[in-house]
């Protein structure tokens, strides 16, 4: 009996070593990805359809952009998802060249809860003032003067911000850093910031929207997708060209109608596009350019390249029904070119 116990224990130990000690890739015909949670519902849908078409199973875990980049650098995944372009430092850590392809766009909206939930218009200055804690009342002349047709109540503004480190905060603060000098000096850009005292922190998009829904006078920022799904009120924002743009999947896609560099490393916040929503951003999939590493087979590399190509071409038709914003044609063309530049032993994988 105890002998059996010991044998069993030994077996368990061996299993543990196998699971955690070595870099074990999953069975052929299954690709592994991890990273950004924002596009996860879209990826799940895409991967499900792709599985039905090609019998290739894809396992994507939403562990956050930072986690995704780490996993790719550690070479434990075939590809990763990230909401922010990799930094110089991360690219250096990765060793060999890492490629980025945009898969869709997301946007951050300024959402609020006011009696009757009127449609508001906001300018960059006012947004910055509110989120710096300088404008404290809803009927402040600064807000009222751009919303002449709305009767704003004499109500305190309760600002809600993300308590967890988040790509949403990053995009929002990147936008404000570009449009407000004061914001740039006091707050800067980051996944988590040193917010003024008296702001409420809540975890995740659900935390923010839950609090706003229950609090009259509250204002915060969430993903467009989240605001749409939860029927929350959000503001139209004045863009660089001076137009007030209501965030919709269409206007967010429009934000990418600018000259996109060959490596797609571009920030779309405060976009030059005339009818683009100014707080928009790409979300990317990242992977190694040279696919022969860590004992990967050519088959595996090919499967990955085909999947990536499908995502930026045929897969794009699943983007809009899920209320994400699809890539404009130019961005999709560049993404295709990038996928085709993938190599195995220095030889191009797809033609």
């Amino acid at each position, binding site marked *: 009996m105890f002998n059996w116990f010991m044998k069993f224990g030994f077996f368990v130990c061996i299993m543990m070593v196998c699971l955690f000690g070595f870099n074990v890739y999953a069975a052929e015909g299954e690709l592994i990805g991890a990273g950004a949670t924002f596009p996860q519902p879209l990826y799940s849908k895409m991967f499900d359809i792709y599985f039905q078409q090609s019998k290739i199973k894809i396992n994507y875990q939403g562990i956050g952009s930072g986690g995704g980049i780490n996993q790719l650098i550690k070479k434990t995944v075939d590809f990763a998802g990230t909401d922010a372009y990799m930094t110089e430092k991360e690219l250096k850590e990765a060793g060999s060249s890492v490629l980025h392809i945009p898969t869709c766009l997301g946007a951050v909206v300024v959402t609020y809860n006011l009696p009757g939930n009127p449609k508001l218009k906001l300018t960059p200055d006012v947004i910055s003032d509110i989120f710096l804690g300088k404008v404290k009342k809803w009927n402040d002349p600064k807000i009222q003067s751009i919303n002449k047709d709305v009767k704003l109540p004499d109500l305190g503004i309760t600002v809600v911000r993300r*308590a967890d480190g*988040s790509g949403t905060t990053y995009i929002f603060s990147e936008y404000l850093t570009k449009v407000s000098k004061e914001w740039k000096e006091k707050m800067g850009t980051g996944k988590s910031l*040193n917010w003024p005292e008296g702001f*409420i*922190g809540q975890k995740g998009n659900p935390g923010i929207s*839950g609090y706003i829904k*229950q609090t009259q006078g509250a204002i915060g920022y969430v993903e467009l997708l989240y605001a749409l799904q939860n029927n929350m009120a959000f503001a139209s924002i004045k863009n660089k060209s001076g137009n007030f743009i209501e965030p919709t999947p269409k206007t967010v896609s429009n934000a990418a109608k600018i000259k996109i560099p060959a490596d797609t490393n571009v920030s779309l916040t405060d976009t030059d596009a005339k009818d683009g929503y100014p707080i928009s951003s790409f979300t990317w999939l990242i992977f190694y350019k040279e696919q022969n590493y860590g004992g990967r087979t050519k088959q595996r590399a090919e499967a990955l390249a085909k999947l990536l190509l499908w995502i930026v071409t045929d897969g794009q038709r699943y983007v809009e029904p899920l209320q994400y914003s699809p890539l404009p044609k130019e961005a999709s063309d560049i993404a295709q070119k990038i996928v085709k530049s993938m190599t195995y032993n220095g030889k191009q994988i797809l033609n």
Partner: protein
Amino acid sequence: MKTEKDASEKRFKNIILVSGLSVIFLLIAIFLTLTIASVPAIKTFGLGFFISKHWDPSLEKFGALPFLYGTLITSFLALIISIPFSIAISIFLGEYFKNGLLSTFLRSSTEVLAGIPSVIYGLWGLFLLMPVTRHIQTLLGLTPYGVGIFTASLILSIMIIPFSASIGREVVSLIPADLKEAAYSLGATRFEVIKNIIIPYARSGIIAGILLAFGRAIGETMAVTMLIGNSNFLPKSIFSPANTMASVIANEFAESTGIAASSLIYIGLVLFLVTTLVNIAGTYVIKKISLEASKEVT
């Protein structure tokens, strides 16, 4: 035959020994991992980490005072709110209604309370306690945040009641019947029996339960995160939004790197040490009090 039996005895003893030692090993391993991972933060901020009240991820300046303060104040408040209820429940279940439908129902209800996932408590707090707190704040003329230390302590107190109540009930029901009967025969009323026999006799158990509950309150993460407002400043009143050690780790760890991650682990190390200290203090108090109590009663 005999030798084989001896061998199996020995093997059994070894297995038990290994299992026992592995607990100690785990404890040390956790401590070491936390210490090693927090070395960069310890080097940069040292002990000033606990006095500094600035938590600024953009400047990479970190101080843990607001979190330490938030954790202790929410846990103490929760404890104070919960004590009357948990003692009442222990006496009610252990003395007044030991058996019967009502007792079974109440007992299983408290047990179910202990088993509810904390995120459910958080949600319930958001929908029920938050409006209540907001109403109180409006009446008091404060900013009606709805979330903050007060709301978090309320939810914590509800969450920890089962822990102290179940141990308390256990101890109260174990009090020898002849002690109580002796008091009754001397003409004591039920209240006098509770006051002079039950509470002194069950004191160590009740305190053990309270300490266990305190340990639970210190470490509670999810429900508190949802209701405390996550503000990285020293709170000005019990209605201010604040933050705790456990919630700041839960909130920020996933997306932080370098010195920020190390500082969070440093907070984790402190949380680990604080809970260990509470436990050690608890064991000490229980030992001391149970000695005194046994002297008093006998």
